[in-house]
């Protein structure tokens, strides 16, 4: 087990290192921050001054060495846009994104598993057909539109929940649901098909023939054997939420997390902040993946990594 975890860890370190390089190159390809950040009417002297302040006038190799050295000690520098340490901004915004993502994936799992199981019990039955239709709908609705739709329905028409911003639990519900629904619809399809496979397996027939109660067959044996694929899709959805969908949903709901901050950093060409957000997010993705691998191993000890 410990060899297995060690293996996963150094693979994670390699991923993080390559992300450092890619992020550095990409952020320097997307344009000239000096040109975009200063007002159009700024004088050439002001531009030169600003460039020198950012260190952008130095050779690219020197910039890279400085960058890697600073990242190694988690010093991401000062945000061009907010003029304060980037690490401070991330520490301020990350908790909001983590909270939102965790609640969203919890919503998604709690809805997807029961729905998928019920649908699998009678494939082609009424419940199954409804679940499939809803899933297709959920898959095809763009998230920003779904968010606005929720705002119109729950905030404007019913007046139950606030439209946007952060505050109490009530502020969390709509953005979390908006993130959860598309994830749920993809998960429900996986739960459904895995469960159908399991329920047709030989051991289920044996258990049934031996007279085990149906709910026990489904909830204990079949579901447990479906756990690995379900965990895989849930982990995948969680990563997609953390590293992508929060950008859209946080913008729609003005939720003060990292996703919204990433959009703002792009708009203001704040490459220092942007590269730090990408870096932190990629670390999060690596960590989640390692966590998932450990969970697999716990669920099914037969799983091995890279040794077959």
């Amino acid at each position: 087990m410990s060899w297995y975890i060690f293996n996963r860890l150094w693979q994670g370190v390699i991923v993080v290192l390559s992300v450092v390089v890619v992020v550095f190159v990409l952020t320097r390809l997307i344009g000239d921050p000096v040109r975009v950040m200063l007002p159009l009417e700024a004088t050439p002297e002001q531009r030169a001054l600003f460039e020198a302040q950012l260190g952008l006038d130095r050779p690219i190799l020197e910039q890279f060495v400085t960058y890697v050295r600073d990242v190694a000690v988690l010093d991401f520098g000062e945000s061009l846009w907010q003029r304060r340490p980037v690490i401070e901004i991330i520490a301020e915004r990350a908790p909001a994104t983590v909270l939102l993502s965790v609640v969203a994936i919890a919503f998604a799992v709690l809805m997807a598993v029961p729905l998928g199981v019920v649908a699998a019990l009678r494939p082609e039955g009424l419940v199954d057909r409804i679940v499939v239709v809803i899933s297709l709908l959920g898959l095809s609705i763009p998230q920003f539109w779904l968010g606005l739709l929720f705002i119109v329905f729950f905030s404007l028409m019913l007046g139950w929940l606030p439209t946007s911003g952060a505050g109490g639990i009530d502020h969390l519900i709509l953005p979390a649901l908006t993130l959860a629904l598309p994830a749920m619809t993809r998960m429900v399809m996986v739960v459904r098909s895995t469960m159908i496979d399991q329920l047709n397996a030989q051991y289920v027939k044996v258990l049934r023939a031996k007279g085990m109660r149906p709910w026990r067959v489904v909830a204990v044996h079949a579901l447990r054997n479906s756990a690995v694929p379900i965990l895989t899709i849930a982990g995948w959805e969680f990563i997609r939420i953390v590293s992508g969908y929060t950008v859209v949903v946080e913008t729609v709901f003005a939720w003060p997390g990292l996703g919204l901050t990433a959009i703002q950093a792009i708009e203001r060409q704040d490459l220092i902040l942007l590269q730090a957000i990408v870096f932190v997010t990629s670390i999060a993705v690596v960590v989640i993946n390692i966590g998932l691998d450990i969970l697999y191993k716990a669920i099914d000890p037969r799983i091995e990594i890279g040794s077959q």
Partner: protein
Amino acid sequence: MRKTILTWCLAVAMAILPLTAFAEDIVIVIGSEPTTLDPHAADDGGEKAVNDNVFETLMVRDTEGNLGLGLAAAEPTQVDATTWEFKLQPGLSFHNGEPLDAAAVAFSVERMIDPELNSEQLSYFSTMAGAEVIDEVTVHIKTSGPDPILPARMYYFMIVPPEASQADSFAEAPVGSGPYKFVSWDRGNEIVLEANPDYRGGAPDVSKVTYRFIEEPGTRLSTLLAGEVDLVTNLLPEFMGQVPQAASMRGLEHPMVLLNADGGITADARVRQALNYAIDKEALASALFEGQAQVEAGQLLGPTYFGFNEDISAYPYDPGRAMALLEEAGAAGGEITLVSTAGRWLKDRELTEVVAGFWSAVGLNVDVQIYEFDEYLQRLFRSEDGQRADAIFVVSGNELLDADRSFSAYLAPSGFGASNSIDQLEQWITTARTEIDLDARQALYEQVVEYAHEEALLTFLLNINNIWGMSERLSWEPRVDGKMFVSTMSVE
């Protein structure tokens, strides 16, 4: 059991009620969160929206844009070519008790031009060279050369307290002298200000104002419809019918198209005039902005800007004339490149496409090139070799309400976005920049306007209105400069 439930309900109701009971508290939604609350550091609309209520300036403008006195007690006077004298009202102070005297003004000037601060606002104040305290209420502001528009610049220049502004916390917890005091800033979520009870002329009506930050226009609209807020900025014209109240006012943004007078198909003045005649500006205003835009008066300036020429008006819509001019210039059916960007300014892509449509309608072959902002800027900025696209869409904003800023940028050949090499224009605009005699200065600008209009160096389009959405209970008059002074608002 029933009784306990009732008691609980009452307790909950009592806990909620005080939060909603103060009708004189308002919530304002702005598009972007301030990056800092240091009024000298950033060039940032969010910061201005908040700090306009916390800090004050020597000069102010009325709702129409006419310059008047703020902290200054009298019209500023020129002592010599490079020195302006300002007299302050006596007995002013900041929220923390520091006196707002000549020393504070001088300190603010020195702070702004300090290279250490490296202010993004420097392009507004780069002519300032220093300041000198004469007595408690008299200060001399020195400029590097003659600067006739220093008083106009002072309307944009906030006076900060010398002691408080040196604290590290100043950018997060500003101390000003205005009708509102800073209370708190919950990053990412809201900023709260409260009325300054000791403000000269009495405390303002609205006792507390909360700023929220929402970039997405649809969400901004729904906060207003849900009754959560009282004022939202930058309402889209198509949403005006849905909100309880809407306010609209001529704004500072002038979309236009720069035409290359140096080369290509647009080198011929007749072609440039034709491009102006070809566009139905009324149709642009009504179709794209629901009528919330004025036809630009053919000069890049609003009627209250210094330099406005009353004798010049927009090119009329006359496609027949346009075609005749093109024919005359031998450019009928010619090809023209139109460079633009998308998502930077309100309806930039739509405006570009409709303009291209009008040009196609008079027989031109328009090659529309829409670039990502940075790519676009590379084409907008005048390069060393002078190669320019035939036509470049751009939006000019002019916070100083003075011709110099727009003309120096887009008409003087040395400007970063100029598409001509006409020495005469450079000379006029440079002379006007330092001309102290206001009549002579006005005359120079009128000359520039007339020349640029006749030569059709630009395709003049529109002057877009700012639109605000307001709750039923709020009463407020919008301003030309778009500033939202909470002290001028009241709620029923």
